[in-house]
């Protein structure tokens, strides 16, 4: 198999799949002496700057439309509502503290977790129950799903910024209410 043939095959495989494709799945189709990672790297290079790009996500690679085309594509492709700020914060807590119980989430945010928020995250398939904590009451533990990684274009959970890095510039990194942006964020929440 020539390199070009391997590239065609990888292209077809990743294009066809609804979910990210791992290097292992590709290597099963390639001759022994060919490196799947190298083929995928070459494929990524070929698609760089095009309307469709190869990105790493959820333990594999996936073709996705280029981000700069989103405003035009949204005119024809139906897009679900964005998650409200409350849901995003809850999701962030679950991502960083998983497996985590509902009382722990509420403790961190300093306020109750509404059914609506939980439903929205479950509905979007971003979180899932991960057993129960063996403490009195046996509360359900929550964690993120593989779809969480796919949706936010993360290779794995280690790609999340470290807590220390998040705290470095707390004011710049956070939505500042003084600047009026805060009230906008609040408006989308309610």
């Amino acid at each position: 198999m020539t390199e070009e043939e391997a590239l065609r095959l990888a292209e077809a495989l990743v294009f066809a799949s609804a979910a990210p494709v791992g290097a292992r799945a590709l290597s099963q189709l390639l001759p022994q002496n060919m490196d799947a990672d190298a083929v995928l790297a070459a494929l990524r290079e070929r698609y760089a700057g095009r309307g469709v790009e190869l990105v790493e996500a959820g333990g594999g690679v996936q073709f996705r439309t280029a981000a700069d085309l989103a405003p035009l594509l949204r005119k024809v492709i139906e897009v679900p509502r964005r998650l409200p700020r409350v849901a995003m914060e809850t999701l962030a807590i679950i991502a960083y503290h998983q497996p985590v119980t509902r009382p722990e989430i509420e403790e961190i945010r300093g306020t109750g977790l509404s059914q609506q928020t939980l439903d929205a995250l479950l509905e979007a398939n971003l979180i899932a129950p991960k057993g129960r904590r063996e403490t009195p009451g046996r509360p359900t533990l929550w964690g993120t799903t593989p779809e969480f990684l796919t949706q936010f274009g993360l290779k794995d959970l280690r790609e999340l910024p470290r807590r220390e890095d998040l705290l470095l510039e707390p004011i710049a990194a956070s939505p500042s209410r003084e600047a009026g942006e805060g009230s906008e964020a609040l408006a989308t929440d309610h």
Partner: protein
Amino acid sequence: MSASEADSLVLRLDGFEGPLDLLLDLARAQKVDLAKISILALVEQYLAVIEGARRIRLELAADWLVMAAWLAWLKSRLLVPDSPEAEEGELAADVLAARLRDLSAIRAAAVWLGARPQLGQDVFARGAPEDHTEIDRSRLALDVGSLMRAYLQAMRRQVRTRRYQPRQLTLWTVKDALQRLGVLLGSLPDWTSLERFLPDGIGSPTERRAALASTLLAGLEMARGGAIRLRQEEAFGPILVRSAAGGVEEGA
């Protein structure tokens, strides 16, 4: 914080996600590193906001008031210098500062996540993925366990059927045997053991012996009438029977 600032915060109170959210907002307003904020100043600002809300008789949820009470306690501890109470207060202040940092980090993480191109929002995967998998259902899933269960089930149902339709101990009468011999005679190829003419499905040995006796009697009766021939090679040997029509004559 001036009085007017506190008043404008009161008007926006329901925009905050609970007391901690307000505290974080106030802390950010101090515009310093969260590690260096003045908890005492923070407490006073929070209490000023709550006081302002009370003044205009804004109804506050319980958690706002619980936090206010706790912060008032914290303030009283922090104001007494060099005492065991102050130490207690400083520990509590540290806990509060840590919680604010945690919330701040989560806020930043949520913003970081929200800024990423989201699948289905900002970037799109293939709208019509192709499925190259094929399901092959030709093979059978067989295991000895299910074979055994099926066998037991069949045997048990047999019992149940019998229970619901109890079979009498049927004694095969000579009349029955005569009828059966008459019907089956035509299909006899050659000498056949008399036992082959016993009815199917005889259960107990008792029934079998009775049926054999009846069949022998019927055979003798028919042989006497000349319809069949009977033969026994030796004493207690099998009794053979065949149609009288056609075939080579042999000793009866």
